[in-house]
């Protein structure tokens, strides 16, 4: 088992699935591809999950540094170098575990060109896993920016009415940030002669250079995360994307921003990170409070959840830039927990959207009378999003706030305000859609969740609860990475 390049297999298995569907598409036409894509994509994503879990079992938590390393020279100073630490592998498992659920959901709700959709989705999975595995900056960049193409197609082809605007905005906004990252990357390569991430983490950049490089990386990751004030692409992209696209966007793509800060900004530019700590705290607090207030005013359910994502990502940056073990552990945990909870919330919105084809909050009301099971599950995820103790949302928020408190009392106070506000908008959303009398006649014969929907939401509910009760499952895994990061930043 140990001899196999497990990470490469995890990355490229989805690509194999995509090529199989593509072959059917070319040889037998679009309809054949649509029908065959269901078993192929489900099987591929499940096998990928299994392989990634095997990789997890091979991963030794006691050892520091990167494991399962594969290294093949590529060109110039860069190489095809893969490897994972605890933080990376937990995000990989999050990705591979969510994908089968997304595929199951899409099989039902996507009607047009399902084969093409699955191809784009599997390629996206390949690129997302690649981002978390890369130990070479150029390789990372290729995966990081390459992911824009399938996501652009998913939003653009299978999105809602305003998909042209949303898909272009998503692509161009993210690309502008990425290109600054590219320039910084090339500069680092020309100075140090290598693009190996481990080597660059040890490379002593001068203080002034660090500041500029940090800003360039910040431009890319803050858009991706997204942070206030460059978050405006996210609500548009979320609203227009199909359900599974929103899930992946919220659960995985946003995490690349936080991952980027932890993998690059902190270890490579420690001085600059310390220098910009006040800025990051200020932006985090603004994001938490502002996005929560904006979320409260939304009339579209997906937009509300999207703004709530912006607010929750504020906790992640708060935790990261507290430079404390609690804060960083909390930030990583918050990323994973948010992946589960916001993914589940988007699935929840998708459930009623598939039935009524609208996401207007005002359209709904009294769903509990017709969809009791749905109401219960939606309740659980709303509470988890608010950060109720016992759910994973609580652990992430409390730890990032404790970490933030150690660094700055004011920052933690501001973040705490966000916790209250999140309860305000989530409970309002829940009350207006689920409780009350059924006033809209169109809702009279709405059906409760189907077996497969219960399966998807149930698994996510279990995950949210398990991580809420036993958070050490994640902490044990990510402790090594956190210590390494703190060590490199000198704290």
């Amino acid at each position: 088992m140990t001899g196999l390049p497990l990470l490469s297999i995890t990355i490229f298995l989805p690509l194999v699935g995509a090529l199989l569907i593509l072959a059917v598409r070319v040889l037998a036409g679009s309809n054949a591809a649509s029908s065959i894509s269901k078993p192929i994509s489900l099987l591929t994503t499940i096998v990928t999950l299994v392989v990634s879990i095997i990789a997890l079992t091979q991963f030794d938590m006691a050892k520091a540094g990167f494991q399962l390393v594969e290294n093949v020279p590529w060109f110039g100073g860069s190489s095809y170098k893969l490897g994972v630490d605890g933080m990376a592998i937990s995000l990989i498992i999050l990705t591979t575990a969510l994908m089968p659920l997304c595929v199951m959901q899409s099989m039902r709700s996507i009607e047009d060109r399902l084969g093409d959709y699955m191809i784009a989705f599997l390629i996206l999975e390949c690129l997302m896993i690649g981002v978390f595995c890369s130990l070479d900056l150029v390789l990372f960049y290729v995966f990081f920016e390459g992911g824009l193409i399938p996501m652009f197609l998913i939003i653009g082809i299978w999105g809602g009415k305003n998909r042209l605007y949303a898909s272009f905005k998503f692509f161009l906004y993210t690309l502008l940030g990425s290109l600054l990252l590219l320039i910084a990357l090339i500069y680092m390569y020309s100075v140090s002669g290598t693009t190996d991430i481990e080597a660059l983490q040890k490379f002593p950049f001068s203080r002034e250079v660090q500041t500029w490089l940090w800003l360039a990386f910040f431009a890319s990751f803050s858009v991706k995360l997204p942070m206030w004030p460059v978050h405006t692409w996210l609500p548009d992209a979320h609203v227009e994307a199909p359900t599974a696209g929103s899930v992946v966007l919220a659960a995985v793509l946003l995490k690349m921003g936080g991952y980027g800060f932890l993998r690059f900004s902190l270890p490579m530019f420690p001085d600059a990170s310390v220098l910009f700590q006040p800025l990051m705290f200020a932006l985090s607090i603004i994001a938490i409070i502002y996005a929560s207030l904006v979320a409260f005013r939304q009339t579209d359910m997906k937009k509300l959840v999207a703004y709530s994502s912006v607010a929750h990502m504020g906790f992640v940056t708060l935790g990261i830039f507290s430079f404390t073990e609690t804060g960083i552990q909390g930030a990583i945990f918050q990323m994973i927990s948010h992946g589960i909870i916001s993914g589940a919330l988007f699935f929840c919105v998708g459930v009623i959207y598939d039935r009524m084809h609208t996401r207007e909050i005002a359209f709904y009301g009294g769903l509990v009378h017709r969809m009791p099971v749905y109401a219960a599950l939606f309740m659980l995820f709303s509470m988890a999003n608010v950060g109720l103790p016992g759910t994973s949302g609580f652990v992430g928020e409390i730890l990032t706030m404790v970490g933030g408190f150690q660094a700055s009392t004011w920052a933690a106070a501001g973040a705490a305000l966000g916790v209250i506000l999140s309860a305000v908008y989530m409970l309002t959303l829940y009350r207006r859609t689920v409780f009350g009398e059924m006033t809209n006649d169109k809702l009279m014969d709405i059906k409760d969740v189907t077996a497969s929907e219960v399966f998807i939401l149930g698994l996510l509910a279990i995950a949210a609860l398990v991580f809420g009760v036993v958070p050490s499952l994640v902490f044990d895994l990510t402790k090594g990475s956190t210590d390494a990061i703190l060590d490199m930043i000198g704290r």
Partner: protein
Amino acid sequence: MTLLADLQIAGPDALLAGFGLAALLLGAIGGDRIAGLIRLLSVIALGAAATLTVIQFPMGDAEAFGGLYRITPFVLFAKAFTYGLGAVALLMSGGFLKSSKMERYEYSLLTIFASMGAGVMLSANDLMTLYVGIETLSLSSYVLAAFKRDNLQSAEAGLKYFVLGALASGLLLYGSSLVYGFSGSTNYQMIAAAGDSVGLQFGLVLIICGLAFKASAAPFHIWTPDVYEGAPSSVVAFFASAPKIAAVALLAHVMFTTFGPHEHSWRLVIAIIAAMSMLIGSFGALVQNSVKRILAYSSISNVGFALIGIVAGAELGAAAVLVYMSLYVIATLGIFGGVLSLRRGGKSVDQVSDLNGLGKLKPGVTLGLIILIFSVAGIPPAAGFWGKFEVFEAGLRSDMLWLVLVGALSSVISLGYYLRLVWAMMMKPPGEPLDKTDFTVAATVLATAVIIFPVLTITIQVLLSAAAQASAG
């Protein structure tokens, strides 16, 4: 040196010249009935010339004809691409020429002579040879642009190209005469050795103007969209590939060798031209509706990117120029293949809206086109990204951060229209069904896409090291 030794060095060009003359005779006897045969022979001749050029690589640096003619690895690299792409462009023009009733044997000959002119201008080691080469290329190109002679647009394109081209040639000649006057020679090495003087700088700037026109760099780009739009599509496919890489490589070659010691005089000029080209190319295309005009602006913008490599200087930028241009022209040729294949009821179509729903009508070609478009846009994992990577690296190493930032900005802007093409193909409902695609065209699109995406992405090392070797000489 004996004639034989000279011919060994100038072999590919001599082969093309000889073949062109022989085929001219053949055509005069056989007429348009054997146009297909002549095209096939011409493709073979261009392919042979490309192969010969590759074989010449080990010769390294060699002079011929008393110092009028010189090959270096850099020149050979560009020449091999010029001939090879010329062959592919000619090969895929067949179906288009037939369906638009332009099946005449002169077409192949003009392509041959244009390619030969491009080869000669690259191999020039003297301003006179340079001028002769450029004029051979240009005159053939003017006629090619007006090849659909009963079509008003095509004739207009040819005339516009000719008038503006003649002006550019005039500038080039005037510049050459100034340089000759102040350096005392037309030989590259002698000019390089000459001392700095105001007259020489004047001449240098005029020569840059003339060469920038040929490469369609801003602000000498005005002809490009009109000629691309008016000229027959197969001709544009040729213009956008073979002469394009030759013109940019020529500009690089002349700057690096002839005016190498005068780098301080031209560096900023070229930097401004590069910045203008990138910005004008990206903004200009945003408001266009014709695919050919969009591709014209895209070529202006891409030339701007390649010029960053020239600004970086011979040592840092030569390889970057070659890598960038070769990746760009391969992809462009493929995209034009796609444009050529678009015909409705025998007529070629050109508006962006004509691409609507292409993903459903022709899934294979569309997939290839999307890969090629993202490559031209420089988005990884398509190989075009490495070109961008190389020129940005060259720019940063030579402390031209502002130019690289302009490049990054225009990359984002130009994505606006590249994505529009993808949008039309993938996300709009399909229009009327299209005619059947020629085999050669579809094969070209897919082959270039395969080269651009899987092959070069994995083995990019091969191209990079070839370019690095070529520019080390």
